[in-house]
């Protein structure tokens, strides 16, 4: 094939055309197709993320519903335990409660004082507080005391006796002087 010799003018025009073509390709990919593809890729990624979130949300809702059923008993029990804490400051209601409780068991002159109060170390009990009380029973019959303690331990699940001290009262052998150190777990209100 015989190539025709190109003139200088033609070579210039060819170079100009090639430059124009390169410019066209550059502009097309840089300013048109590139941003469009980037935006599309971003949207596809966002769709994947949102769909994953939607899917996980459905799982989350199912799990919560299942947990709700499982926790029914625990929730009821928790509410019951919460109700053992009366309204107001414990120092205001706990000593009268003890006085009434022991009076019902025939033990009078009962006094209770708050020894110490502290938070629990366990994170699960962050809403609960631990109070230590000294309950003094200056005149108590041993049998009545035993029954009262049994009743107290059965009716107050969040009360634990840490120490029991019983001394015979001099001159009155039918009575004992009793000190109970009780620890209560109370809901913070």
């Amino acid at each position, binding site marked *: 094939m015989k190539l025709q010799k*190109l003139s200088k003018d*033609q070579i210039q*025009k*060819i170079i*100009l*055309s*090639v430059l*124009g*073509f390169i410019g*066209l390709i550059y502009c*097309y990919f840089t300013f048109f*197709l590139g941003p*469009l593809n980037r*935006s*599309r890729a971003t*949207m*596809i990624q*966002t*769709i994947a993320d*949102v*769909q994953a*979130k*939607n899917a996980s*949300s459905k799982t*989350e*809702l199912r799990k*919560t519903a299942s*947990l*709700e059923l*499982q*926790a029914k008993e*625990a*929730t009821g*029990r*928790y509410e019951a*335990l919460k109700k053992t804490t009366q309204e107001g400051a414990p120092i205001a209601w706990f000593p009268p409660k003890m006085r009434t409780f022991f009076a019902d068991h025939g033990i009078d002159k009962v006094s209770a004082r708050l020894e110490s109060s502290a938070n629990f170390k*366990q994170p*699960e*009990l962050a809403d*609960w507080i631990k109070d230590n009380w000294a309950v003094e029973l200056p005149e108590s019959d*041993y*049998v009545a*005391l*035993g029954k009262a*303690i*049994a009743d107290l*331990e059965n009716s107050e*699940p*969040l009360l*634990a*006796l*840490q*120490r*029991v*001290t*019983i*001394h*015979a009262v001099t001159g009155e052998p039918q009575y004992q002087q009793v000190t109970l*150190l009780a620890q209560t*777990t109370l809901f913070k209100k």
Partner: protein
Amino acid sequence: MALQLNLLHEEFTEERQRKRDPLKLGIMGMIGIGAIFFLYYGWNAYQTIQIKSRLSAAEAEWQRVEPNVTAAQKRAAELRQIIDSTEVLDTAIEARFYWAPFLATVSHCVAPNIQVTSLDGSLVEVDHSISVALEGLAAAREPRGAAEEFRQLLSEQLEKSYTEVKVSFKNLEDLDTLVNLSGVPTASARFVLEVTLNPTPAAPAPKPATRSQKPEPVKEAPTTK
């Protein structure tokens, strides 16, 4: 052969050169490629618009679900907290030491010739064991023997309900004074007992075989000499 003269040779050459103008051909090529690019861009833009509509739908769905999910997550965290708290509280409740049965056991062991004057019991924080100091008087012809009987009986009775029971004398001394026991002056001794025990309930004794249960055959009869 007839001779032909091309008198328009220059015009034809000029026309051919005009048609083969590289700039013109280049512009035409670029227009063609540009058209293809435009169509490709249009196709991509169409797809992007579709994706955008899918994204909008997905986001709308998420916007609709999000409050429920947030509420559900909050509720789940709350429920987990309740379950954990209840578990810890229940463990604490079940781990309590019940003093009433212990006091009942002590009272059942006290014979008429024994007088307990002081009882001081406490829960040891370190190992959750129970430590009790019992102080009292024993009256009998052999007051030390009476105190020992009380110690043994208490130990036996406590072992029925608790484990690691240890009942030992911290102090035991004869008293010079006689005490009146059922109108009879009797020698007495003062004792201090130290009781330690583990509140874990003792394992129940094995049940005797019932009639419905087939007794195991005796392989070899015991022989006595």
